């Protein structure tokens, strides 16, 4: 069927257009009881979705982006009226199309994923049958074939344990897993166009990044065109080839992603770009840390009976970190990552070379949440220690500590608890709070989430990101896990045997690693999933 269509579709333009919206105007009644007093929701909207491209639609809420997607899907409310214009989908006029033909298109050629998977998945139906249902409605495959295809679809969206998931209900899955199931369901019929309406908005940053990567991967593999709707410029920048900016039901500007977002022409786009929280470029050019030709040694200390030995751990390291940056340091164990942390925090003084800090020395969050809080004291006492340098009354200190507990997502009652009564994630929150109480804006996280399970891990990363955004926290993030670093850091430095292999922006490093070692590391981390 698709072969058939691609031969019949003749485009006058050089570009192969899959969907073309021209002059689309849609109105709604302001109040339901007076159908003739109407408001224009979409105002002469025109844009194209080229075959095999990802088009992002960006705008504030109420800008008409979702309305556009509903118009394409033929899912506008009954009271809505398409006043003018046309939607041409691969030679088929969608405006005024009869419901029966539409139903044939939906879920087959056109498919859609939504913001909250929980509302679009059937809560009383197991995942397997739910995905199969789409196939049963639109194809005439045998049951065995349907079963096979559904499985494949679920495997293609990167779900592990597909056998188990097939027999589970939506509420048994995590948010990320549900979103993957929904993508599998949307992709199972190999549609021409996939509409994703704020599909990653409800997810936390890390899962969001993974889902975006997945969509990009599916897009590249299957060649499906994607209409990606989001209010988040960073998300759009990450996934879209072309961008349509909408405001008050009108298209403000459209073009390729770099054209529109890097060199916006319209005033509205400019403000939109300016106000977007910028994660990809550095907020400031001020270095917070400079290391120049630093050599670090391990000193085994004085002994009467043994020659004092110095072992070189880090060799000739030159690295600059900027204020407000999240810098990842990656390497296998023994590569010298933690040694660097020790030198920066002042725990190890056995180094030569130049290390300059713009502000105070960094504070540090340790790997093992069990060991980093004093087991003999209450949380309140432990946290108050961080305020020792400050001249505050006892009551003021307590107030500050409790405010910090809230800031790291814990309740006041934690003040009187002992560390052993806390979970790993809670302890890590305390550690982070402890560092921030000192008023320090520079944090070293040494494998700070490695000991935690995956859900808690992403919660802690969320907290760090949140604090980074709110307070401009600079974070040196040490990890062996490339997947974590990729979605979390602006730049990544790769270490091998104490030497800096390369340092580049996270995107660049993953897209185009310069050294063989980085390539090998990447390959290994991809294999792990």
């Amino acid at each position, binding site marked *: 069927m698709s072969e058939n269509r691609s031969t019949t579709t003749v485009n006058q333009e050089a570009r192969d257009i899959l969907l073309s919206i021209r002059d689309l105007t849609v109105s709604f009644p302001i109040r339901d009881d007076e159908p003739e007093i109407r408001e224009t929701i979409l105002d002469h909207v025109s844009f194209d979705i080229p075959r095999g491209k990802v088009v992002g639609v960006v705008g504030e809420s109420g800008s008409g982006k979702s309305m556009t997607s509903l118009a394409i899907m033929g899912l506008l409310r009954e009271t809505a009226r398409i006043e003018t214009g046309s939607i041409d989908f691969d030679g088929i006029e969608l405006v005024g199309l009869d419901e029966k033909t539409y139903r044939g298109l939906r879920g087959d050629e056109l498919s859609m994923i939504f913001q909250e998977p929980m509302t679009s998945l059937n809560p009383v139906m197991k995942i397997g049958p739910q995905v199969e249902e789409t196939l049963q409605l639109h194809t005439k495959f045998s049951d065995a074939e349907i079963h096979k295809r559904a499985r494949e679809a679920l495997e293609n969206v990167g779900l592990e344990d597909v056998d188990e998931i097939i027999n589970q209900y939506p509420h048994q899955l995590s948010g990320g897993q549900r979103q993957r199931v929904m993508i599998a369901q949307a992709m199972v019929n190999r549609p021409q166009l996939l509409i994703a309406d704020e599909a990653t908005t409800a997810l936390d940053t890390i899962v969001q990044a993974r889902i975006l990567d997945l969509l990009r991967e599916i897009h590249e593999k299957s060649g499906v065109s994607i209409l990606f709707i989001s209010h988040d410029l960073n998300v759009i920048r990450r996934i879209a080839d072309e961008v349509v900016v909408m405001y008050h039901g009108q298209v403000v500007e459209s073009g390729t992603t770099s054209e529109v977002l890097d060199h916006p022409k319209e005033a509205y786009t400019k403000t939109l770009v300016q106000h977007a929280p910028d994660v990809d470029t550095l907020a400031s050019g001020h270095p917070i840390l400079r290391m120049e030709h630093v050599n670090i040694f391990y000193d085994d*200390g*004085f002994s009467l009976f043994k020659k004092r030995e110095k072992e070189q751990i880090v060799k000739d390291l030159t690295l600059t970190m900027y204020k407000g940056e999240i810098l990842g340091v990656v390497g296998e164990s023994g590569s010298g990552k933690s040694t660097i942390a020790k030198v920066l925090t*002042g725990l190890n003084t056995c180094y030569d070379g130049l290390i300059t800090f713009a502000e105070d020395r960094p504070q*540090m969050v*340790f790997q093992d949440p069990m060991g*980093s*809080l004093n*087991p003999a004291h209450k949380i309140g006492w*432990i946290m108050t220690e961080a305020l020792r*340098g400050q001249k505050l009354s006892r009551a003021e200190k307590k107030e500050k500590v409790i405010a910090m507990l809230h800031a790291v997502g814990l309740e006041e009652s934690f003040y009187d608890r002992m560390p052993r009564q806390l979970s790993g994630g809670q302890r890590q929150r305390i550690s982070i709070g402890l560092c921030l109480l000192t008023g320090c804006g520079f944090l070293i996280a040494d494998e700070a989430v490695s000991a935690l399970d995956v859900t808690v891990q992403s919660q802690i990363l969320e907290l760090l990101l949140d604090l980074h955004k709110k307070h401009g926290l600079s974070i040196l993030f040490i990890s062996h896990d490339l997947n974590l670093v990729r979605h979390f850091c602006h730049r990544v430095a790769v270490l091998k045997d104490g030497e800096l292999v390369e340092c580049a922006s996270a995107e660049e490093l993953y897209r185009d690693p310069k050294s063989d070692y980085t390539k090998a590391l990447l390959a290994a981390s991809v294999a792990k999933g």
Partner: protein
Amino acid sequence: MKKWFENFHENWRHLNRKLKIGVVLTVVMLLIALISQFWTPYSTTAMDSSRVMHSPGLLHWMGTDNFGRDVWSRVTAGSGMTYLVAGLTVLIGFVFGVVIGSLTGYFGGWLDEVIMRLNDMLLSFPSVLLALIFISFLGKGTLNIVLALGLLFIPSFARIVRSEMIRYKERDFVRSARILKISPLRIIVFHILPNARVSLLTTAAIGFNNAVLAEASMSYLGLGVQPPTPSLGRMLSESQSYLFNAPWMAIGCGVWIILIILGFSLISDGLKEEGGDEQ
């Protein structure tokens, strides 16, 4: 600690049996020792030739000795001296041991090496022999015994505290405190020592036992508490000659020493078990 006593009934119930028995035994023994300092059934020093070496009976629960003195009165009063000497000895050993052990353990370096080698030298001599050497310099007497024994107890305490320091100083919570720029002294006293409290208390209890025995042996050798002040060790040594005629003289003292030591041993073992739960 204050909170612990506010909830005394509840908390006491959760302690292990060894600790409970040990504490009760020691408290009773201490009370008896304390009361006997002010009141004993008979005078501890007055001799009575009409009652020489009476066997235990209703009037004299532990019998009388070769001068007709009541053994019970002398044993209980003597145990007071034993507690005092042992307590002071442990106190000296504890205080100096904690200071030396903390500093050497936490800071390390050449001073640590030197002090610990000296420590090893002291530990390699039998303690009674060393105490004899000290006494020969200092002269006899209760105070001197305390000083000599206290000095001898320093190395073993220092060693334990040092090993606790080394155990904890590379732990992340101590590193975290160092990064917070908390002074080394405060780290030692407030961050590390509270964690080492169980092993400190256990060591103190064992040390107390050793001190009781050491005091007894020094007095037995005639170097400690001087007559006629009653002392368990001296009484034991005096009873030796009458072991066949009046065994109750030796038995009374011996049982008392055993009870004192049993109390502390049980406390020490019990503390170890309590600490085990915590970590």
